[in-house]
């Protein structure tokens, strides 16, 4: 089951475009929103380098789409 939901997408956008926007919203909320606990803003996961790389790739591809 997917969490993120597109409530409305302009018929002038492609379905793939709307999905990318929705994914960007999910990542932005998790990684750039929410309560921040002092001193706890690094991603506390095991494989930090890979995570950074993957998220950077996802975000840059979505942003390229948005800039078109």
């Amino acid at each position, binding site marked *: *089951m*997917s*969490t*993120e*939901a*597109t*409530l*409305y*997408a*302009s018929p*002038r*956008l492609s379905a793939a*475009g*709307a999905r990318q*926007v*929705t994914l960007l*919203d*999910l*990542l*932005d*909320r*998790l*990684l*750039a*929103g*929410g*309560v*921040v*606990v*002092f001193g*706890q*803003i*690094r*991603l*506390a*996961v*095991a*494989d930090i380098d*890979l*995570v950074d790389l*993957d*998220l950077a790739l*996802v975000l840059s591809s979505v942003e390229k789409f*948005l800039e078109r």
Partner: protein
Amino acid sequence: MSALLYAIADGPAPADGADLRFVGDGPVAVVGPPDADATPDALRAHMRTVSELMRDRAVLPVRYGTQLEEPELERLLQERREPLAAALDRVRGAVEVAVHARIAAAPTSEAASPRSGTEYLMRRAGNVDPRLLPLAAVARAVAPAPRSDGTRLAYLVDRDRLAEFVGAVRALDHAHPDLELVCTGPWPPYSFSEGWL
């Protein structure tokens, strides 16, 4: 061992908390075991967990990846009890909806002066297209979405006005062929929970 912090939420703990634990006795912290890795599936599961918490209680979602030792968490909850309770009051009964506006052409006219506090806040959110202003009337609050340049906004919408809000987005999109609107959610109020704990 430190725990992964999902959200600050209304207590008490639900009868069936699955793998989650609820720490504290005022506003509670919802914690679970740390993710081994931040895979896309783990991120979606995290969002799903916070969304499910939001079904029957107010939540202040916490930025993903935050881990704390439990005694430290209990101390923070105690110290920040009142501001956390006030922040929960502000989002209770509402959800976050994101609106993206891709604008094919610049608007042709300058907007009139803001007519309400909400409109004023929206102007402050950035270079917001004035044609989006009607959406603010259906929302409790407006904030720039994370990393926004003014074309992405977050709205705090009463849960029972969600359909009305989406209808307003659809109507605007139909009325303005050069706006391409996308509306996503309902999200936990990530853009209305900012601040330091």
